[in-house]
């Protein structure tokens, strides 16, 4: 899978970034294969909002895991920095009022079931993730 980024201008997250996983027209949704370093290299992102879309994943709940790591990442072993549940068959939206900083960068994975560390099973259906971050050089 791949992801799409869109520069955000003129919003409260001025000079922010919207990250959508997977990119449009992809047939494979967000899963346990991590998308590494989804923000621009050399920047430290601050996470402000999350949308987990499980409308096409009605079979089971999932967990979105965001890692403060940009390489050598093992989903199921490495500890997630932030982990949020995505409920089957619906959208989950979340906002962090003061943002959550990622010192090294951000990598993303979605797994079936719960937890911030163990487990690396792919969701059965199609899961889409949208993140909004502010990047700091």
């Amino acid at each position, binding site marked *: 899978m791949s992801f799409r980024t869109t520069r955000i201008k003129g919003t409260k997250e001025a000079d922010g970034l919207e990250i959508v996983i997977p990119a449009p027209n992809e047939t494979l949704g967000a899963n346990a294969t991590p998308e590494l370093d989804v923000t621009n290299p050399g920047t430290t992102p601050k996470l402000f909002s999350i949308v987990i879309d499980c409308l096409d994943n009605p079979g089971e709940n999932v967990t979105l895991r965001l890692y403060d790591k940009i390489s050598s990442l093992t989903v199921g072993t*490495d*500890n997630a920095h932030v982990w*949020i549940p995505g409920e089957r068959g619906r959208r989950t939206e979340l906002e962090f009022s003061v943002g959550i900083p990622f010192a090294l960068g951000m990598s993303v994975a979605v797994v079936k079931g719960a937890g911030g560390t163990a487990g690396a099973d792919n969701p059965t259906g199609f899961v889409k993730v949208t993140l909004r971050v502010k990047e700091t050089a």
Partner: protein
Amino acid sequence: MATTLTSAGFNTASPLNQTQTKIVQKAAVIDQRNVARKPVTLYAVIVDNMFATASNDKVWFRLYDDVSDSWNPTNTKSLMGFPVEKYLGAGNQLNGTFQAVFSRTGITFGKGISIAASLGTGSDVGGEITATSSNPATDVAVELVHS
């Protein structure tokens, strides 16, 4: 309504002491093992690491969809978790000593809510609490808004 939980209440090495710390929610007093003892939808959570001094690290806060007697944060997968930054010095209190999380859609806890926190150091940076995790060094205040 916000309540301060003592760091001793987040005892990661043994089952949580139900009498040692309390969470006040509206007019009811509920212990942290069962913050909410029924299926609920969570709409907001505010975690304040306001008492941390400059020498203390950030904490990781976790919520569990488990209110059973056997629940222990060292052997139960959490439903969600996030870091709350440490004190950043005088005049910087709003730069990360608390985290407020809001959900327009809500997050479902089918059994109820239990909570736990640990000091984010060493191998316990993020992820689940383990038997070697440490308590937060200072009090952590938590406020939940749910159905």
